[in-house]
């Protein structure tokens, strides 16, 4: 079974690396966020006594990259459903659980590779050198959000039927997830409504975890964040499996 997982995982990696435009946009998008938001909000942030906005924003942008990359990969599944490859996997003597898992691991890995590359460039630009423990903890948070949103993308790719409206509908879902995650602004001092919405969003725990791992300042205790993310990953995997098992090509 490991071999099947490996082949499906490798397919996602190859597919990503061979689509040069996708590689470039996946790496460029976080920097556009960083530059556009960073230049706009940095002076306000500094005046408010919150310190360097770029340092604050970098984990948020990395988290956003993972979110967008993983969720939009659901369109690959929709594409496979519409243009055939899914049938090749569904008539093979393999449980759909493994097919979904192999695909999700591939998607999560692609998102993680992108996150690592963006993270390295941010660290180099900020001349920050975290220790191995900090990097390991940040990667663990990144991996968990990559898995959650890879499964979430699989749900969308399984239940939606119109490839053309996929990106519009996904934008409608993903944009609030991004803005209500503490990626762009600190959650301290926000209204109760914003805080409640943010703490219902698993991305919040992932971004706070990555930020805390690198800076030492956590809003939520890291153990609690890891627990929330682990439970979210299990739930999203369960719902993804349910949706995937109902695909009728």
């Amino acid at each position, binding site marked *: 079974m490991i*071999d099947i997982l490996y082949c499906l995982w490798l397919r996602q990696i190859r597919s990503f690396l061979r689509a040069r435009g996708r590689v470039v946009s996946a790496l460029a998008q976080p920097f556009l966020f960083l530059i556009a938001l960073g230049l706009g909000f940095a002076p306000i942030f500094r005046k408010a006594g919150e310190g360097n906005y770029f340092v604050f924003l970098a984990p948020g942008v990395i988290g956003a990259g993972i979110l967008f990359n993983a969720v939009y990969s659901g369109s690959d599944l929709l594409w496979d459903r519409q*243009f*055939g*490859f899914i049938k*090749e*996997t569904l*008539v093979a*003597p393999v449980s759909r659980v493994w097919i979904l898992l192999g695909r999700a691991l591939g998607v999560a890995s692609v998102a993680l590779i992108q996150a690592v590359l963006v993270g390295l460039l941010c660290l180099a630009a900020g001349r920050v050198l975290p220790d191995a423990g900090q990097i390991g903890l940040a990667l663990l948070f990144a991996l968990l959000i990559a898995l959650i949103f890879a499964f979430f993308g699989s749900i969308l790719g399984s239940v939606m039927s119109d490839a053309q409206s996929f990106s519009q509908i996904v934008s409608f879902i993903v944009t609030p997830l991004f803005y209500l995650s503490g990626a762009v602004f600190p959650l301290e001092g926000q209204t109760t409504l914003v805080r409640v919405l943010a703490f219902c969003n698993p991305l919040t725990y992932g971004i706070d975890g990555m930020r805390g791992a690198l800076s030492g300042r956590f809003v939520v205790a890291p153990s609690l964040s890891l627990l929330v993310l682990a439970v979210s990953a299990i739930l999203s995997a369960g719902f993804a499996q349910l949706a995937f098992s109902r695909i009728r090509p």
Partner: protein
Amino acid sequence: MSAHSRRLPAIAVESLVKRYGAETVVDGLNVSIASGETFAFLGPNGAGKTTTIKMLTTLLPPDEGRILLNGVDLAKDPMNARRHFGVVFQDCTLDKTMTVHENLWMHCALHRIPRAQRRLRIGDVLALFDLADRRDSMVSALSGGLRRRVEIARALLHHPALIFLDEPTLGLDPKSRRILWAHLQHLQKECGTTIFLTSHYLDEVERFAHNVAVIQKGRIIMQGTVDSIIRYAEKTTLEDSFLFLTSEETQTKEDRAVVAGA
């Protein structure tokens, strides 16, 4: 192949029914196909051919009825049943972002062919279908005819006793169609593979199929050898016979009996 499995029909379909809402798409289908034969499943567009193939290949569960592939009940043991067949769908199901070899390797992995055997088996099917020089080509760079050959080669990698071909020559030029049929005939002669196909090219069916079933509105209206069907319709070609049998006038004139193996 054991003596036991040789006696079993390759495909046995009993009272198969599929409904989409209030519409019955497949309505009480009964078919028995012997091992090693080429069986053509014909019908006008929307007759229920593709839905039937989807049920035969475990992609769709039937609402009623039973399907046995080499004696394995699809409903009871779909995983085991999937080992017995290969399938080439109407639309290309190759991954166009991968090479020919990568697609074949993926199929080997999905069918749990041991790694040590994969290289040999891939080499064999590439040679069988004259694709050895295309091994490392991207699928996106192949012509329609070559893609079809790759798909059929892929479907044979796990040595299935039965292969489903849904419109295998659709969209191919005459030369590619001829090459494909030559490969299929060679395959059947060498390996005794049972071929279940649908096609709108009835001249090809007339030349290559042993038995034919004609389906209309989800029901089999005629089944038998190509010759028996032509004789029954009192026509000179299978195409004319098919058009006669599926015409509205013929439909209302009589309730046809199945011509079995005449």
